[in-house]
């Protein structure tokens, strides 16, 4: 062992001391109390599992994996959703849907340390499995809004999209896989010039090409939904997706959450995983999203219990950073400790124990004779 390693810190790990740790704990408590308030049940899943559990999507390349004594490949959890899906399909198989489950803890990923991403991430999230899909979508977004509200985040925006819009239009375009990926990359960046270039020479009909380019600008208030319904009327899949989105936004509007909503039909990240509505949470003073979620109707089938599902999560690291920037951290110091000591070690300790029994915060003052 090289001694200098004992002082070094591997990139991407985090350590919180005192006040910072207290802020994080309070944030976690506030969020968890909202989850509990909506009758979600906590799951504390294992720290590692077979690597296959986390296979698929973009996670595999970010997973810390290792070989068990018996030669099987294990992985530290890079996310919670796969684990909760496995538990819902296994241990909780007999439990009737809908299942409402939440988690709060750390995941680890190989990520370049960048823009608020570390290798260790603390996630607080929930999954709603089964039940009426639109009701579940609306419920999950309402819970996300309540969490942010409860935390005191100013000016947060829930940007809602639906992967079916892009998927439907791309299907109409009939592109090769490679071109679809290039196109998606440009739609993600809201780059109309790039979309035009990605479609050049692909033999896409002008109407479909125009619709795909339009995806880069259809973002904003709810009027974007009306414009989209008109522009994409020729595409059944996109139309159905927009109708779902409208049902959910209408419900959220009626519930008084309209001021936090935005529509973003160019939101196509995570397309291999999400199957329906997707949303991301943004706020002024933080350049990247605080959290997000969406509907993933095909994941549970992998574990043998095909259930539609929707979930969302907040990144504790980002929430803490955002609250600090907005001056909204709960800075209240803990109660002052009362110094307790006695003539002898035993007497001092006895008074400390007695004060503790009454619920006081004590600092025990008896030490070894100086």
């Amino acid at each position, binding site marked *: 062992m090289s001694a200098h390693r004992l002082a070094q810190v591997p990139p991407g790990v985090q350590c919180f001391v005192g006040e910072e740790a207290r802020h994080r704990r309070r944030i976690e408590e506030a969020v968890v109390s909202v989850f509990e308030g909506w009758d979600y049940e906590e799951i504390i899943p294992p720290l590692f599992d077979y690597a296959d559990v986390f296979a698929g999507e973009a996670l595999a390349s970010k997973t810390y994996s290792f070989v068990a004594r018996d030669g099987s490949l294990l992985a530290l959890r890079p996310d919670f959703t796969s684990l909760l899906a496995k538990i819902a399909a296994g241990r909780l198989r007999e439990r009737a849907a809908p299942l409402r489950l939440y988690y709060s803890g750390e995941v680890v990923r190989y990520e370049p340390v960048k*823009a608020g991403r570390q290798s260790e991430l603390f996630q607080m999230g929930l999954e709603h499995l089964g039940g009426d899909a639109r009701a579940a979508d609306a419920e999950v977004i309402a819970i996300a809004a309540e969490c942010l509200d409860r935390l005191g985040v100013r*000016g*947060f*925006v829930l*940007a809602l999209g639906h992967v079916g819009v892009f998927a439907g239009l791309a299907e109409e375009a009939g592109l090769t896989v490679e071109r679809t990926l290039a196109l998606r990359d440009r739609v993600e*960046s*809201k*780059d*109309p*010039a*790039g979309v035009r270039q990605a479609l050049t020479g692909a033999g896409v009909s002008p109407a479909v090409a125009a619709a795909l380019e339009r995806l*880069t*600008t259809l*973002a*904003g208030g709810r009027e974007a939904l009306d414009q989209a319904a008109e522009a994409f009327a020729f595409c059944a899949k996109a139309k159905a997706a927009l109708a779902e989105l409208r049902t959910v936004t209408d419900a959220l509007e009626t519930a008084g959450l309209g001021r936090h909503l*935005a529509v*973003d039909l160019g939101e196509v990240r995570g397309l291999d995983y999400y199957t329906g509505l997707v949303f991301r949470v*943004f*706020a*002024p*003073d*933080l*350049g*990247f*999203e605080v959290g997000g979620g969406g509907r993933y109707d095909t994941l549970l089938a992998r574990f043998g219990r095909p259930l539609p599902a929707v979930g969302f999560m907040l990144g504790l690291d980002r929430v803490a950073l955002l609250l600090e920037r907005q001056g909204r951290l709960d800075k209240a110091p803990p109660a002052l400790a009362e110094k307790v000591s006695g003539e002898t070690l035993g007497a001092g300790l006895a008074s400390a124990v007695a004060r503790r029994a009454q619920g006081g915060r004590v600092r025990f003052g008896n030490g070894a004779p100086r």
Partner: protein
Amino acid sequence: MSLTVALSKGKLLAGSEALFRRAGLPFPNGEGRKLVVASGELRFLFVKDMDVPTYVEYGVADCGVAGRDVLLETGADVLEPLDLGFGRCRVVVASPAGRAFAPDRASTTRVASKYARLAAAHFQGRGLGVEVVRLAGSVEIAPGLGLADCIVDVVETGRTLAENGLEAVEIVAESSARLVVNRASFHARRAEVQGLVEKLREASR
């Protein structure tokens, strides 16, 4: 609070200034060497061209003007709603005249570039594992001095290449100046950002 705009101090500066003035937007008047300047309802940051996407991705700036070449190289996760039309150039592979890049010798080929990531991705995409040598500038002299077999660099007119006995043999990417916008600002400050985008769209027509 005003919107913050990150601009390159380099070759895109003149085009950016012309565009902002044409759009009737404020722009600092000869503030000398100051790097952070408030002007009207906007605040400007003047940074290195390769750093513009970073300032915008982290949300320190709400928007910025960056070349597509720089966006490809940095891989920054930002929105690119407008092709501003100026600063057109190409990123190319250039070799000493008469000594074109030979794919069959890729394993022993060295490529010098400021665009190390882009260069590596370009060759990797074709299954060619070349050695990329990252340089900060004056890339065109590398082949003549024996540091590299070829280079990946931007060309506007091709004069610099010719002066160094190089010729463009492959196009890696086409580039022009783009308006870039931070993802969170796009939603959390929508009205202001949209206003700016629309003014610049009109002016870049």
